């Protein structure tokens, strides 16, 4: 996945921030135990969030322990671990997603990237086999997603149809987190818009690059020579997705990590959106007036 789902740290309490860090480190450790040292490198913010949702929705008991980081033994870390399946589930998703992403790169990149991806795949393959065996449903869902994504891009689909595969995948993953009928319904909608947001966010982020390299991008139709107004359009599409996402999120029955998850949903998403669309991109190229506007938008007012 892409790492857009992270909390806005300026809005977190210190203890919440430490807890978040310990979940990240704990997930890293759990992945190392289940799938080997190298797969720890595939860990992303998105999967950390998924682990927190899994633990929170199933009311799993979690505890924090002190230890040292594997990659930097000088650094002391706290590790969060849970009694149930939550961390394992997120680790498996991370490994499986990475494997398919490498597969995807092999099939549609240039020579150098392809070779690097082949080497990477060689390393992940063993872990992937193990994850696939433990969670065959996830592997099947991801491979479906890759196939229908390919199809959608070949058809040059619009915004809705091209984001549908990722949205459906996340919807399937989220549904599996609860047994309760009502919650499953909420989760299906929640996952759908979460996936849609991630996909569209990535598309908006890559828009400039895709135009340069003449790649497929669902927002390309809305680019008429001016990147800024295209970004404003992307922003309104993403805004609408976030508001639907929050509607579903408000109905979830969450247990632990509620403050951090609230932070991601209410602040983190909007912040990422602003950061990627208005302050990261091509600040150098635009005129002074536009630059002021970018600055204005990226600062913005926080909600009261």
């Amino acid at each position, binding site marked *: 996945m892409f790492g857009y789902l992270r909390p806005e740290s300026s809005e977190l309490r210190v203890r919440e921030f430490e807890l978040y860090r310990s979940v990240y480190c704990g997930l890293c450790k759990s992945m190392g135990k289940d799938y080997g040292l190298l797969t720890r490198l595939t860990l992303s913010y998105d999967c950390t969030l998924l682990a927190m949702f899994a633990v929170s929705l199933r009311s799993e008991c979690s505890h924090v322990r002190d230890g040292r980081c594997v990659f930097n033994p000088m650094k002391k870390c706290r590790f969060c671990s849970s009694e149930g399946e939550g961390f394992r589930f997120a680790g498996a998703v991370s490994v499986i997603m990475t494997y398919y992403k490498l597969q995807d790169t092999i099939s549609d990149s240039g020579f150098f990237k392809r070779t690097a991806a082949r080497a990477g795949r060689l390393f992940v393959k063993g872990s992937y086999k193990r994850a696939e065996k433990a969670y065959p449903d996830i592997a099947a869902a991801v491979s479906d997603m890759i196939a229908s994504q390919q199809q959608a891009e070949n058809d040059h689909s*619009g*915004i*809705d*149809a091209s984001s*549908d595969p990722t*949205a459906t995948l996340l919807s399937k993953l989220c549904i599996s987190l609860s047994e309760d009928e*009502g919650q499953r*319904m*909420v989760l299906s*909608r929640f996952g*759908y*818009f979460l996936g*849609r947001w991630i996909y569209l966010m990535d598309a908006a982020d890559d828009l400039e690059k895709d135009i340069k390299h003449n790649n497929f991008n669902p927002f390309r139709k809305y680019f008429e020579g001016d990147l800024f107004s295209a970004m*404003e359009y992307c*922003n*309104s*599409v*993403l*805004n*609408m*997705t*976030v*508001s*639907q996402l*929050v*509607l*579903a999120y*408000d*109905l979830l029955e969450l247990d632990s990590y509620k403050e951090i998850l609230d932070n991601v949903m*209410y*602040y983190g*998403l*909007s912040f990422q*959106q*602003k950061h990627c669309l208005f302050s990261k991109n091509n600040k150098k190229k635009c005129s002074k007036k536009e630059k002021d*506007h970018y600055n*204005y*938008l990226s600062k*913005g*007012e*926080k*909600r009261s």
Partner: protein
Amino acid sequence: MNDPYKVLGISPSASDAEVKKAYRELAKKYHPDKYADSPLAELASEKMKEVNEAYEKILNDRKNGVSGSSTSGSGYGSSGYSDAGASSYANTYGSDSVYQQIRRMINEGNFGQAENALSGIPSDSRNAEWYYLMGVVYYRKGFLEDAYNYFQTACRMDPSNVEYKSMFSRIQQQRSTGSGSGFNASGAASQAACDCCDICACLMCSDCLCRSCG
């Protein structure tokens, strides 16, 4: 029934003002207007009911058994919002029976069937209602951009219809502000211009009024 204090997310020692505040916030969160046309409307109204009941129970308990009609304190009566999701398609606006049937399908949750029925209507006899209903089907499916375009067309074809207009303005609100909070406002409209000239003009005006510059 669950512990009413837990439902409102407060401790039993909370003051009356705190109870009221917590209730107001939750009532805003689960307000049926926000969930109109969403497949989650029913779940939201259940939550709303739970919150209403919890609030009433706390009020009653605190009045310490003062008898009878004690609902006067609740801002949002439980009866008002309990069936908002279910009734939204009962109104017909004098449309012919095909669209009534389709509305029924949407109400029952048969979106695939409704979409097929809508696609079956020849393109030269599609009116504003056709576009509106198609928008509803896509909205529920999560295809928000297509839904947006359909609602827009419906409003253009029949600008006087209140149902279409309220749906469309709700969506526009979502597009401009994200979670409906004014947090992620975009566009030139939100840009506040303030330069030297503005400051000078402002000072001059205020000086005229109250001689603030002596």
